[in-house]
């Protein structure tokens, strides 16, 4: 199997730096997602690995061999594209067999392999259908089978689910993960959908403005963001700018808050306190809440309330500060109404801190 190493990879388009000295290793059999907003450089990175672009600086290494200048047709990488890319003049089976035909495999081997792969993606009965006779989800399944037919060293997925509706997207996401795990193929997956990246990947690499912000497992990326961008981009995060006042305490808009994560920081340091909405509790003003030593964060009125199935999202504002978002179990939130005067609190142990002085 194969290890991919992106070493100080840089790509410029004229004056625009699309990718800035990116270093990332994708280990053998691992599924790594490149996650970021539009224009962050994730697709550029994928195209550099595929060979459709030449790097301005740095190298792409496959098992230690520099392939930066090898044309895409010689890299033996399977790719599934965002746009439907099946050849309209060929049936599903012919599409899957295309790479094998190019490699001049015998028709016997070709038809056996095509059958296996269409079976694997659950489309054996659609072998004779043309792309326009297939739904979007089916087309992307055939595209996946086509990419896998040539037994690629690396599988590259460029937002293959973005054109599909939510239900099909969820199903195909699970299917991609099942097949990838089954084959143990090294995979690079590009997406702007954080939920998709967190659900699917062994590790996630978050990009912003052509720079790698953080690489980590989904729980690390979600629970321990290392930069303000990651904290803001992944999930919903309450961000409180504060100053350290003493061991375990900060001051935010004149209010003293307990934050365990600032125990080792010196007084006067500017910090960003990050609290996930699910760590925020709502109670009557002045209540301690569940008997734990909580810190008052904001006392104010409920200004927003959205039912989201298992949780209800509540926004609390005192008028001056940024609204605090809390995700409450829906069964506990039914009595809360817009305009209610409440206190939003969090556990000092559940807050993460980033320094603003650096």
């Amino acid at each position, binding site marked *: 199997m194969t290890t991919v190493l992106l070493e100080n990879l840089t790509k410029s388009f004229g004056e625009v730096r699309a990718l800035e000295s990116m270093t990332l290793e994708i280990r053998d059999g691992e599924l790594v997602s490149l996650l970021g907003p539009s224009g962050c450089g994730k697709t550029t990175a994928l195209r550099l690995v595929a*060979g459709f672009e030449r790097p301005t600086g740095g190298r792409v290494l496959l098992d230690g061999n520099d392939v930066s200048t090898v044309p895409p047709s010689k890299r033996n990488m*399977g790719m599934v594209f965002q*746009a439907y890319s099946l050849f309209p003049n060929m049936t599903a089976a012919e599409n899957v067999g*295309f790479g094998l035909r*190019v490699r001049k495999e015998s028709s016997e081997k070709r038809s056996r392999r095509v059958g296996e792969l269409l079976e694997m993606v659950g489309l054996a009965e659609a072998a004779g259908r043309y792309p*326009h006779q297939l739904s979007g989800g089916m087309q992307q399944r055939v595209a996946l089978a086509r990419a896998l037919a*040539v037994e690629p060293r690396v599988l590259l997925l460029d937002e293959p689910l973005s054109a599909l509706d939510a239900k099909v997207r969820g199903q195909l996401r699970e299917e991609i993960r099942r097949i990838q795990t089954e084959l143990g193929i090294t995979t690079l997956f590009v997406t702007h959908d954080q939920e998709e990246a967190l659900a699917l990947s062994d590790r996630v690499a978050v990009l912003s403005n052509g720079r790698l912000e953080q690489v980590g497992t989904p729980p690390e990326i979600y629970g321990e963001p290392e930069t303000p961008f990651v904290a803001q981009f992944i999930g919903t995060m309450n961000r409180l700018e504060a100053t350290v006042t003493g061991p375990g305490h900060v001051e935010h808009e004149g209010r003293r808050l307990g934050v365990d994560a600032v125990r080792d920081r010196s007084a006067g340091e500017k910090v960003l306190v990050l609290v996930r909405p699910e760590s925020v509790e709502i109670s009557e003003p002045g209540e301690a809440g569940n008997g734990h030593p909580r810190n008052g964060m904001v006392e104010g009125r409920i200004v927003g309330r959205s039912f989201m199935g298992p949780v209800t999202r509540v926004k609390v504002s005192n008028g001056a500060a940024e609204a605090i978002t809390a995700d409450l179990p829906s069964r506990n939130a039914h009595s809360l109404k817009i305009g209610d005067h409440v206190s939003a609190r969090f556990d000092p142990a559940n807050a993460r801190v980033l320094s603003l002085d650096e």
Partner: protein
Amino acid sequence: MKSAKKLSLTKIAWLSIGVLYFLVPLLATLQFSLQEGREGYGFGAYTYILTDPLFRQSLLFSFLLALATIVVSMLLLVPTVYWVRLKMPRLRPVLDFVSIMPFVVPPIVLVVGLLTLYQGAPSWFVATPAILLCGYVIHALPYVYRSVDAGMEAINIHTLTEAAQSLGAGWGTVLLRVIVPNLRVALLSGSFLTLTIILGEYTMASLMLFNSFAVYIAYVGQSQANPAAALTLISFAITWAAMLGLLAVTRRGSRGGAEVQAQIGGAR
């Protein structure tokens, strides 16, 4: 209801005027082509034309030249348009401009230019239909270019090319097995248009002294009145057959094209 009825009557009236405008001259030509002597009618003029060896020779000459024009134009334009769209999109306005030049430059000027340009060229070139072929390729350029360009617009050539490359295909395979088969309708449209235009092209063939079909029509028209009318209708039928072929192909293709468009549109 009343206004709808009025509108429909207006439509019928305009349609009738249009039909009469086209049919009356044709019917008059048909009547004249069938006239034999003062009061009799027959197919003498048609028999004369269809048995005239010059008719078959000139038609075959123009037909073969049209086929050669189609082949050369396609070989020249398909890879060019593909490459420009794929790798040099900034050159597209230049191609667009060049492609309409034959509309701007009159054929007579084109012939003079060609003859001056190829003065001193070997006789196997200037004394054979090869020189006429050069002129015809330029003459057909706007039609072939528009057809090929529209065909490439309808398919996502970037993604299809990259998909084929990632599966190990080289440029030749990409072009011949992926791009060209998906341009079938566009290429057929361009071919039919070229065929029709070349069958009716007179100026270049006449000035370069070739006996093309259009030159034969002009010759018969100047010398024999009734066969000229019959020939007009025969050439009209040939042109219409080509146009109907084009229509049939385009209709069939527009369904396929819509499907391709829907696929690409759905992905965005």
